[in-house]
């Protein structure tokens, strides 16, 4: 019953999608961002485990999804994505944000050096610590990276809203993807700007990541500043209309 309602809702959304696409073909409404792929192309699903699931384990929803995908055109897989176990979407996104001038090779090597530096520092600490402290020291650089970025994510953000000729900073809830983006951007900005010029990026970045993992450091401070400003401006929250 619920599945049927879901399917009906999906069909309605497909209809709406078709109507939207028809709307976009109207004269006077031109899309500036266009793509070499037509609107009917779907994003590829690069997950080995997904296709290995036997048919019995799939729910009705998943079966419908699978059948639907068989009729859809799929885009080509991007050049930076593989089904390898070492491929991490967060690390890829961070690498891309660190990249300058399209030099992916350099960005990727810096990322690798950063993770190596994090691992080395943690191992030094591990070998220098006593037995009961050793249990608390995290040595996997990937978990440190993910946890550090999660710690840096702000919960609420500020948006300038024009009212009566003045711009007010209004506190606004942020979406997941905006939060991740802000965390990564602050991290990179911090490492690029507020460090002495002689230190290399992997060193700076590994240091910042370890501090953020321990909930200390300038990036965490920036997140707290953002929260405090939002708290201070909470009287303006009613300016938000969405």
């Amino acid at each position, binding site marked *: 019953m619920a599945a*049927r309602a879901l*399917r*009906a809702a999906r*069909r309605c959304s497909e*209809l709406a999608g*078709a*109507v939207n696409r*028809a*709307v976009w073909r109207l004269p006077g409404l031109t899309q500036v961002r266009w793509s*070499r*792929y037509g609107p009917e192309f779907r*994003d*590829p*699903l*690069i997950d*080995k485990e997904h*296709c290995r699931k036997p048919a019995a384990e799939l729910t009705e929803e998943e079966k*419908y999804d699978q*059948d*639907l*995908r*068989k*009729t*859809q*055109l*799929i*885009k*080509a*897989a*991007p*050049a*930076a994505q*593989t*089904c*390898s176990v070492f*491929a991490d979407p967060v690390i890829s996104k961070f690498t891309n944000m660190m990249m300058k001038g399209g030099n*992916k*090779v350099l960005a*990727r090597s810096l990322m690798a050096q950063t993770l190596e530096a994090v691992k080395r520092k943690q191992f030094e600490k591990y070998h220098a610590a006593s037995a009961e402290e050793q249990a608390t020291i995290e040595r996997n650089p990937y978990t440190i990276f993910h946890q550090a970025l999660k710690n840096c994510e702000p919960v609420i953000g500020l948006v300038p809203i024009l009212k009566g000729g003045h711009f007010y900073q209004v506190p606004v809830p942020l979406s997941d993807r905006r939060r991740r983006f802000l965390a990564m951007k602050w991290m990179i900005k911090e490492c690029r700007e507020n460090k002495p010029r002689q230190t290399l990026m992997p060193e700076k970045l590994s240091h910042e990541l370890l501090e953020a993992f321990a909930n200390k450091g300038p990036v965490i401070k920036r997140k707290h500043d953002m929260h405090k400003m939002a708290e201070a401006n909470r009287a303006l929250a009613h300016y938000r209309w969405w």
Partner: protein
Amino acid sequence: MAAPCVSCCRGLSYRLFLGLRVNFAQRQGYWQTLPVDAQTAPESQILRLIHTTVVTTKKNVSASGRDSYTEDFIKKQIEEFNIGKRHLANMMGEDPETFTQEDIDRAIAYLFPSGLFEKRARPIMKHPEQIFPKQRAIQRGEDGRPFHFLFYTGRQSYYSLMHDTYGKLLQLEKHNDPFPQKTESMNPIGSRWLIKEELEEMLVEKLSDQDYMQFIWLLEKLLTLQYGPAEEEFIQRFRRSVTIQSQKQLIEPLQYDEQGMAFSTSEGRRKSARAEAVVYERGSGKIRVNGIDYLQYFPITQDREQLMFPFHYLDRLGKHDVICTVSGGGRSAQAGAIRLAMAKALCSFITEDEVEWMRQAGLLTSDPRVRERKKPGQEGARRKFTWKKR
């Protein structure tokens, strides 16, 4: 006999032979002929016509708005088209009985080669039903009274369709139990509702988006009830089939070399790189690119990961040998081209399900993205010049 009617969107040229009794079409200055001699005996109205090339500002029928063509006119066009088709077949030395539309297109392209870029401006010869827009039959009788009871709504076909559908819905609801236990709804993935444009074409009427959605909503409601074969047939009129995309994938046939080892060849491209890969059935996972080992040809890890991708996805990492040639593009484009070529060649060794999984992972689609051109008045493809206030 009338000459083959090759209608070109820009001009028409008719040559009429003498001694014919000809019907004139009254529309649009279509024919401009001057009857020179019309004063012979009443039973033989022979008109000696002079050659006239009518280069009218003949409207592009598909571009102009709906103009009304009489049924006789359309019938005559169809007759002329059929006669002209036979003449064309004769000219090309083919059998007039089995002369299809593709043959006609080829013959016209051969006889009237055109270098115009706009495909719609080239000479075409198609069945009049494809050229002249579909029109509605006369809707009023001789006394001025309309035939259809919904004529004065302005959209009689649409409203009558909605009326019929709703009538069927009410009938089924009356006969069904109020809480249907229907678990499986007849909505398999293989078909879809017709889109708004198709419905407009069917009804020969303009529809708005809301009208279309209302109609589809009614049909969906009909699907939830139990219906018999009559309603099934009614519903099927509004369904179109959807292709299963994986069936379109071309699978290369296997070839065998001197030792009896099976191999498969395929091409791939990405940006301006062109690659050709030969994947052998049994091997140890060695890849040679342009005669060089892939470790030396692609020193960057990302490129080697791309080469590994198709094999890793199918768990066949060390099982195939590959020899490929690649040219053009940069290092990443070459890697992408080889990846596509290898994935396509691998299709010959795997099951159909695995082909579908590869397609859904995006391994079998050719990447259409190319470098966007720089535009005049801008610094790059998207970047504009710095805005200066004065």
